[in-house]
């Protein structure tokens, strides 16, 4: 571009602005500044129309469709769940990369790295909680996306392979979430993953299952090798595979187009890609602005929820010698844990999930009904709803309240002051633990309203178990709160009862609560009351 003749033809200002516009057009792959302005104003494109150029000339937009059918841009048609799932994966990648700065996957360091992140790194807790919340939301989003696709029958011909890759993506998402679960190296992580890999061990034939288990753990038990392998899975291998399958999936989605609402087409027709000119909504600028606005809104919501409400849990450090009471799988595997409680390890852990997975993948190939309309698919929809209900019931069965009850005394104390986690007593806090000895046989008045509630719960639970459990007769309990050190209180739970043959039995547990320990309620409003304004020095 010869400068001198340009400057001579027009003024130097025009030459510079034209050059700037030229650079701008190159960066935007064909859209000059004036056209951007027209797009933002909602005006028609200039002539010739450059708005499709970024799709054909630039890399980033080449997979995005240039236009959508008007009917599929309606929010309630897809709820944009596919977009939301992809965005959450992107969010997880970013927060994950950031967290990697302060985390090393060795048992000697992992837990202290978590503590350091949460207490000594600026924005460390925010990043960790964002990563955790994003992971849980991503599992929810991909599941809802699958449910929506099922209910609108969008998996039918010609989109069967898209559904297939989608199921693979679902499995990858669950594995990603599960492999990340181990990394904090606390009791919750360690034992949940031990259960998971033991399920892998149950894959028949025996030699295959045991080999899979050893490969995953790197040793007979989960230790340094296992942590490293899960870290590599979580950080490298699974994201890469998910990336690959995502692009196959999305390419197919664009190739066939998003299926229209079923009442806009004839049964068996698929005109998703033959959009008449008057029903087109172009990506630039309309759908682009729409998608951006949605993602901005979701980001704001997630960050606000994390900052104000959500705290990811961290239990005590992993102890391979001791499995805590009420050990649970992550919530999206509750259904699996429920199954494990009612059936043999192989059947419940391997065969049933395996068959379910194969069935899920095979739905589009088994479903011969060409209609996407609800009224023509009653069987499919009802069986989908029934499947959902079954999963929910199995999930409830996976919680500790079903069929894993220990001895009454153990359960009573676990309810009020669990081995891992918070519970009502720690929630109350140090200030609400008045020193004294409290016996359930006598009147329970401690002077503190909240502690009285706990005492009441304690005596009610003892009574209930006393009535229902034959081996737990004439029970009573004593709670002792004493000052162990200037800022440390000791709480002793003693439960006494008579066994069926009249012998006196006891159960004792001791816990400590420190004044500065902060047990924030996981899903409640965060308690910032510990932050006191600086007190003026009073000649202390």
């Amino acid at each position: 571009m010869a400068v001198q003749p340009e400057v001579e033809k027009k003024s130097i200002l025009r030459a510079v602005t034209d050059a700037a516009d030229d650079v701008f057009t190159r960066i935007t792959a064909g859209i000059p500044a004036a056209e951007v302005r027209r797009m933002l104003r909602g005006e028609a494109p200039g002539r010739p129309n450059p708005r499709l150029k970024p799709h054909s000339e630039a890399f980033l937009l080449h997979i995005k469709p240039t236009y959508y059918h008007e009917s599929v841009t309606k929010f309630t048609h897809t709820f944009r769940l596919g977009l939301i799932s992809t965005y959450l994966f992107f969010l997880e990648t970013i927060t994950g990369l950031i967290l990697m700065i302060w985390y090393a996957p060795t048992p000697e360091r992992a837990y202290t790295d978590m503590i350091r992140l949460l207490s000594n790194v600026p924005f460390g807790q925010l990043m960790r909680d964002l990563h955790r919340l994003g992971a849980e939301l991503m599992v929810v989003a991909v599941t809802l996306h699958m449910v929506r696709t099922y209910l609108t029958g969008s998996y039918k011909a010609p989109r069967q392979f898209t559904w297939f890759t989608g199921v693979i993506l679902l499995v990858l998402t669950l594995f990603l979430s599960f492999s990340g679960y181990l990394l904090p190296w606390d009791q919750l992580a360690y034992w949940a993953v031990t259960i998971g890999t033991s399920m892998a061990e149950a894959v028949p034939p025996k030699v295959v299952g045991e080999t899979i288990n050893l490969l995953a753990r790197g040793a007979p038990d989960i230790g340094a090798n296992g942590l490293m392998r899960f870290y590599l899975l979580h950080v490298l291998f699974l994201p890469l595979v998910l990336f690959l399958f995502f692009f196959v999936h999305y390419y197919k989605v664009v190739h066939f187009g998003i299926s229209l609402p079923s009442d806009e087409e004839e049964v068996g027709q698929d005109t998703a890609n033959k959009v008449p000119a008057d029903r087109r909504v172009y990506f630039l600028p309309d759908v682009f602005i729409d998608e951006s606005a949605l993602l901005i809104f979701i980001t704001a919501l997630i960050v606000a929820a994390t900052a104000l409400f959500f705290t990811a849990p961290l239990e005590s450090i992993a102890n391979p010698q001791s499995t805590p009471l009420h050990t649970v799988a992550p919530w999206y595997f509750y259904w699996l844990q429920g199954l494990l409680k009612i059936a043999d390890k192989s059947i419940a852990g391997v065969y049933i999930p395996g068959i379910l997975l194969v069935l899920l993948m095979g739905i589009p190939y088994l479903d011969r009904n060409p209609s996407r309309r609800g009224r023509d698919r009653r069987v499919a929809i009802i069986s989908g709803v029934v499947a959902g209900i079954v999963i929910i019931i199995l999930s409830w069965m996976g919680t500790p309240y079903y069929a894993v009850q220990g001895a009454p005394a153990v359960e009573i104390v676990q309810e009020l002051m669990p081995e891992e986690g918070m519970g009502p007593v720690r929630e109350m806090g140090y200030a609400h633990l008045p020193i004294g000895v409290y016996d359930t046989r006598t009147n329970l008045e401690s002077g503190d309203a909240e502690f009285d509630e706990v005492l009441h719960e304690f005596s009610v639970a003892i009574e209930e178990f006393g009535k229902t459990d034959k081996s737990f007769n004439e029970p009573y309990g004593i709670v002792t709160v004493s000052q162990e050190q200037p800022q440390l209180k000791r709480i002793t739970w003693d439960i006494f009862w008579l066994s069926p043959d009249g012998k006196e039995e006891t159960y004792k547990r001791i816990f400590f609560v420190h004044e500065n320990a902060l047990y924030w309620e996981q899903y409640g409003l965060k308690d910032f009351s510990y932050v006191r304004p600086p007190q003026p020095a009073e000649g202390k």
Partner: protein
Amino acid sequence: MADKLADLSPEEKEKRIADMKAKMQASAQKTKAVPGAAAPPASAAKAEPVVAASAATTATAAVVVAATPPEAKAAGAPTSNGAATNGAAAAVALAPSVGNGEPVIVVETPEQQAKKAMNRREFLTYAWGGALALLAVEAGVGTFFFMYPRFKAGEFGGSFVVGPEASLPPTDAAPSPFVAGKFWLVNVAEEGPKALYMVCTHLGCLYKWAQSNNRFECPCHGSKFDREGYYIEGPAPRSLDTFLVTVDAGMVTVDTGKKTLGEPAVDSPARAVPV
């Protein structure tokens, strides 16, 4: 005019193309003659200008190509609702009655464009863009603080408490090493304690204290420094670097995060004069 161009026979095709060309030239001339006039709704589909020109006059994909400033403002308001009405509403609002329905293509000049005032949609988009940019900046700043190393007391880069002032060695004693903090502590008469960085200022080796010669000597290239860290001889460019030493309420603290470079070797008071 319902047939697509591709369906016509070659002669008809040529005739059609000639027709359209003539029409386009006529309308271009018309617009040139009346540059300020509002354009009637032109019918054109997006990516196929040739075929589009033959579409019906009242095609629903009405595209208004240009508008003079007053009409632009009017167009701005109706188009601020509904992403799907990609310009169709603008066409409706504009509909001035040049009802011969001929396709007119008007291109606005850059001056006309630049003069258009911001409409609501544009303003809001800029506002959102600004908010997003602010978020990006905040995220960047947050990430920076997240990533910045945290210096702990007792770790190199942080502060080391040496001890009470009274426990300092006498002013003629040998320097004492503090390996974790990477400094030698030497008590200088009339100056107080000095913390010398253990790394030689030449190329980074750790020099040693040679008791017999009462000086520091670097084993790598032979740089020599006196007890107080001043350069004596050797290839080193400057005297030893020092860390900030503070005496706070009787306690001596060395801050290994605050390093002062040694003075250039040429200015060193202990410099050996060549014989």
